[in-house]
């Protein structure tokens, strides 16, 4: 019985109000802007030697991660889910970071193997 009475306090009510049309267009604007910045860097700043390629790459990666955050948090609504669900999805991403570290390290040894 108690589970039914507590349901009202579950926070279901604010679940749906969290992504208004205004917010959607705002996030869409941010995503478009970030992509535009990436193009300015790739098509103007790097070819004209205003910034070097090795400084451009970290910029691309940071901008990509920012875009990923906005898509997952707002479009996929994860920001407004229960903390338990957020962590269930976010924490396993550490495995991906682990694989990146392992394989980038490994690839430096493959250079010697290639001769």
């Amino acid at each position, binding site marked *: 019985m108690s*589970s039914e009475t507590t349901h009202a306090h579950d926070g279901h009510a604010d679940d749906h109000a969290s992504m208004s049309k205004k917010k*959607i267009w705002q996030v869409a604007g941010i995503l*478009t802007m970030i*992509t535009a910045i990436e193009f300015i860097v790739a*098509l103007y700043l790097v070819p004209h030697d205003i910034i070097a390629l090795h400084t451009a790459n970290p910029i691309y990666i940071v901008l990509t991660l920012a875009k*990923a955050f906005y898509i997952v948090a707002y*479009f996929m609504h994860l920001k407004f889910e229960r903390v338990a669900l957020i962590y269930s999805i976010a924490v396993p991403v550490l495995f991906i970071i682990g694989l990146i570290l392992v394989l980038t390290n490994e690839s430096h040894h493959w*250079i010697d193997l290639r001769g």
Partner: protein
Amino acid sequence: MSTAVSQIDEVKTTPWAGGRSPFSVEYGKIMMWFFLLSDAFTFSSLLIAYGALRFSAATWPAADLIFQSVPGTSIQHGAPLVFVGIMTFILIASSVTMVLGVEAGHRGERKEVALWMVLTIIGGFMFLGCQALEWTHLHEEGFWWGSIPKELGEYFHKGDAASAVSTHQFANLFFTITGFHGFHVFSGVVINIIILINVLAGTYDRRGSYLMVEKVGLYWHFVDLVWVFVFTFFYLV
């Protein structure tokens, strides 16, 4: 008789006390999230393999030299990354229409959901069409799984030695990864069409919830998310 409840008999009401989902999300939606997580592992493995092969190569073909044309038009050269830019904006736009459809579903507006879903499906088809054009163009230049053009000099930056091994790896990984992504887009379009038919038939009105639109929306946004990474690591970096 006393009505006081001893502390141990008191019914707990915390999220993890049992009797309801601690995630407060419907079963199918949780499963969609876990499927997407596993799919994220698959795509990461492919992209990280690409990164490792690229790091271990002395020289690597440059994307802005390979992707110079706008297939389907007369522009054959001198327009680096323009076409892939169009593709990226198409996919972001279709992600926006999808989330607008989900929002309309929360309000139970059947016709509005159907309109946004139709636009999302059109976006999906446009993206697939662009990809078909790009693949055809690259194929005509001589790129395919296991085959590369004879003359490689134009695909490498000045000062980089043209490497047939690197170009082979680039071609194989390009077609595998964008192909796997395109396959996901195609599945997404098919699933979107099925859900659209259900929306039009009023299935979700009878059910009283447009949760299925939300679930297919999650998948569609994930496809967009993957493209964001493919775009960065294949075309920009």
